[in-house]
């Protein structure tokens, strides 16, 4: 149970952040921009978000699903063993390799892995992806530190700067 005195909400993480409204709004703008501006395919971001949440064992983050990102239940099922699964494409595997290492093994990321990412996404794309994975990592750390309760949400659209942060 969270120890924060936030209002009851269907989006408890958002409610906790809203205790500091200025920071909440700027955080939402930052996080939403990642999804709003079509910088990367939503499905790719969603896969990375869920894998980072698995690595943190963050039930509150895992409880959120963005239906329109287009990630299938089969892929979610296979995500913990993505490197052995045939359900992920070459570019997705390169992105998941980054998602795998950033939370706990960031020093083990190799120049070769980063070059592989740049070959798939270009330099601007890989910067967006790295920022995105850092934000997914931050979301989990915040939720776990706040003690945010899991609130299962089937948000139709991926995260947006306009709506709540689920």
């Amino acid at each position: 149970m969270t120890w924060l005195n936030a209002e009851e909400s269907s989006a408890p993480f958002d409610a906790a952040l809203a205790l500091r409204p200025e920071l909440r709004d700027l955080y939402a703008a930052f996080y939403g921009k990642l999804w709003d501006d079509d910088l990367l395919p939503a499905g790719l971001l969603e896969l990375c978000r869920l894998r980072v949440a698995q690595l943190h064992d963050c039930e509150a983050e895992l409880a959120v699903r963005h239906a329109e990102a287009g990630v299938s239940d089969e892929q979610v099922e296979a995500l913990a063993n993505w490197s052995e699964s045939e359900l992920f494409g070459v570019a997705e595997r390169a992105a998941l390799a980054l998602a795998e290492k950033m939370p706990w093994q960031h020093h083990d990321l190799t120049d070769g892995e980063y070059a592989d990412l740049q070959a798939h996404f270009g330099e601007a794309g890989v910067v967006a992806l790295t920022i995105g994975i850092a934000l997914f990592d931050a979301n989990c750390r915040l939720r776990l530190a706040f003690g945010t309760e899991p609130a299962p949400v089937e948000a139709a659209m991926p995260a947006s700067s306009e709506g709540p942060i689920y």
Partner: protein
Amino acid sequence: MSTKPRVSSAIPGEEPSFGTALAHQPGLAGAFGQLYGTFWSKGALDHRTKEVTRMRNARVTDCGY
């Protein structure tokens, strides 16, 4: 860990750095700058507390930058 920058500078004439890497995505860089700047310039915590936690976090993540 890499011994050389993996991302080039997006700002002509400037050496690769955290800021010039983020500049490959100006929208994200601007949004980050607003959030981070507000965190430092306003809020409930004093500067010393923020700086101590920033430095401790850098140690824990072994980030020499």
